[in-house]
């Protein structure tokens, strides 16, 4: 089921590639922290959590009850509201970072490792999308690319039997290829025919979803003796190794994601190819005039984005889940759009935003199990974050931040 799909138009307005013209480095950094995008991202999260608190209160039976006699005894309402919200958010924290109630130290820190585990596909796919955003491509196809990566990586993982090391490597390469091929379809169509990547990638998401459902109805993808659409377990040699032993689900995919983030940073800031990407994103006409092939750039961008999303799929199927199912991509591909936007399409930002969303996911389970708060609150918080990021003037007016255009003239103030 689709998570959050931000309006492409508004997101395009916020395309980070558009804000690259900057004067001095120090002044730019200061402005980014106070009025710029990084601050807006943080404040958007804060505002979304606050609105989420309102919803938690509204959904809580005790608060509802106290609200009926609010004017007779307002204290009850206040304490019920505080109780509901603090319980829910403290459960969210304990499910995402550190569990105070745990019996053992391993259980206590397990939530943090869960957060890291759940951030892996978000970081991979978010990095891929970030490259696209900076090159002026609004790729919404991470969902389909994750699925294709999972199909390729998963099939190699459970159907082939190869020596240790080689098997995992091949499965990862297969997943990258799967995602890259899928994304390149949109890239080629955009380059050759001008077909809009938003439409094409959305459609490819649907095709991927039905493709995996079809494949899982074939004997070759099912477990022996079962007719259910679930693949056999991944071969031991193709599994991403666990980092902290069998008590934790954290696997080497997390390290790969961090390496990928560094790679994307190098690609976008240090390499000629990355410069071309950014130039095309800033102004395709100027880039063409300067002798760059815009068409070839689109195909490259989509290919790399798809390979990264495909790795996200591999991380799920070879690391976290260890089987291929129709729902292997969950809503990661859509959440990753928010992650990339929240991270301002920068590698470090994407990693941090991925961790935040991983934390919301991991914490959401605990919040639901411990306090009965509907898991949908987490979804609403995520959606509000998108909404607020897409409307920076709104966030600025809520928190009384100066307008960046004016701040550039008068100097930064908090």
């Amino acid at each position, binding site marked *: 089921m689709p998570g959050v799909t931000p309006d492409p138009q508004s997101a395009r307005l916020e395309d980070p590639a558009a804000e690259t013209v900057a004067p001095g480095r120090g002044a730019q950094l200061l402005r980014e922290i106070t009025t710029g995008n990084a601050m807006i991202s943080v404040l958007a999260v804060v505002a979304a959590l606050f609105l989420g608190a309102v919803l938690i209160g509204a959904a809580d039976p005790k608060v*509802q009850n106290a609200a*009926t006699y609010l004017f007779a005894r307002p204290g009850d309402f206040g304490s019920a509201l505080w109780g509901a919200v603090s319980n829910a958010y403290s459960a969210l924290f304990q*499910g995402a970072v550190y569990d105070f109630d745990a019996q053992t130290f391993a259980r206590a820190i397990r939530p943090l490792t869960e957060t890291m585990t759940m951030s892996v596909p978000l970081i991979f796919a978010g990095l891929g999308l970030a490259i696209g955003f900076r090159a002026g491509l609004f790729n919404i196809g991470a969902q389909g690319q994750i699925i294709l990566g999972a199909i390729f990586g998963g099939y190699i993982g459970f159907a082939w039997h190869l020596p240790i090391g080689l098997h995992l490597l091949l499965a990862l390469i297969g997943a990258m290829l799967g995602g890259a091929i899928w994304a390149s379809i949109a890239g080629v169509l955009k380059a050759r025919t001008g077909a809009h990547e938003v439409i094409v990638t959305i459609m490819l998401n649907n095709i991927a979803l039905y493709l995996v*459902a079809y494949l899982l109805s074939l004997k070759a993808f099912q477990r022996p003796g079962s*007719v259910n659409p679930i693949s056999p377990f991944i071969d031991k040699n193709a599994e991403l190794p666990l980092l902290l032993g069998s008590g934790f689900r954290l696997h080497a995919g997390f390290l790969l994601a961090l390496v990928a983030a560094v790679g994307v940073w190098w690609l976008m800031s240090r390499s000629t190819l990355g410069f071309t990407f950014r130039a095309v994103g800033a102004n395709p006409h100027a880039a063409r005039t300067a002798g760059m092939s815009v068409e070839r750039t689109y195909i490259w961008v989509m290919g790399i984005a798809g390979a990264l999303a495909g790795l996200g799929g591999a991380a799920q199927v070879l690391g976290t889940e260890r089987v291929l199912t*129709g729902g292997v991509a969950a809503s990661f591909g859509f959440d990753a759009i928010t992650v990339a936007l929240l991270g301002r399409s920068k590698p470090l930002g994407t990693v941090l935003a991925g961790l935040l969303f991983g934390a919301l996911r*991991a914490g959401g389970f605990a919040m639901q199990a*411990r*306090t009965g708060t509907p*898991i949908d609150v987490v979804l609403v918080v995520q959606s509000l974050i998108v909404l607020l990021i897409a409307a920076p003037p709104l966030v600025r007016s809520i928190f009384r931040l100066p307008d960046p255009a004016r701040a550039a003239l008068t100097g930064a103030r908090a």
Partner: protein
Amino acid sequence: MKTRMKIAALVAAGALGLAGCASAPSSSSSASASKPTGPAFKACMVSDAGGFDDKSFNQAGFQGLNRAVTELGVTEAHAESKANSDYVPNIDNMIQQNCDLTITVGFLLADATKAAATANPAKKFAIIDNQFYDADGKVLAIANVKPLLFDTAQASYLAGYLAAGVTKTGKVATFGGMQIGSVTIFMDGFADGVAKYNTDNGKSVQVLGWDKASQKGSFTGDFDDQSKGQNVAKGFIDAGADIILPVAGPVGLGAAAAATAAGNVKIIGVDQDWYVTAPEYKGIILSSVLKQMEPAVFDVIKTTRDGGFDATPYKGTLVNNGVGLAPYHDLDSAVPAELKAKIESLKAQIVAGTLTVTSPSAP
């Protein structure tokens, strides 16, 4: 400063308004907040991606849990899964919540349940619609997991016989939400029931949407999108079918909408008696193939609380009324008396074991 105050006031007013609006139905909201007193027993449930409001098997299971809370006074916790990746963390959270019995709904949770059960041998589990298999495809029993299975083919066999006897066009149809064992088992029984009618009466009623031999047929692809159910049903109606068995949870309601629009088409419901659960369509509900999950869940909670847990699979059949055919209600007159009698005798034969309904997906 003024603006800030205004915004703060606005947000506060909004919060109040929201809470105020929501105050009315507080009594009917989830029981998780109430803590009834009783023996310290905690029953927990994890849904699959359909959620507890799916008007289908998650909901039916959840009703069983709620009944246990009201009637037995056990405490509960429940977690809705939104995606396959949610199963492991949700079950893990239930273990952290010290649940004595965790019920997982659906075969998709099988791996997660098995792993949790192996890692926590002191905890009890039950899983709906799943049997465990070892690497050779043999049934595998896990000491602390009780499978709750339903041989719905038996009941849908009767439904197929009924449909074949009632159809005017000589064509009946069925479709599924997803091609999974707990869905296709309905379709297998239905197809066999129609085939039985044809042999008995020398007729050639056709089944659209499912071929038992090749295990291929029509599926909408999910259990959410009613418009897909409507489209598929519309296709069957255009092809001449006048009785449809939609095995797709809430998606089937789309088929009911298409049948209402067509005018002369009847629906056979699944899981629960649709005459009761979907009264807006009661005029076209010929019958329903019942899958009694609520009592099964309630019973496993009760026996586990009383210390009688065992890992022997519960198998809902016509014999123990775990599955069944719902009454014909308003359409009683559309079913000829001899057909009713024949269905009763078929039921008796299945109960007696002289007639066996087979399905590759049978538990």
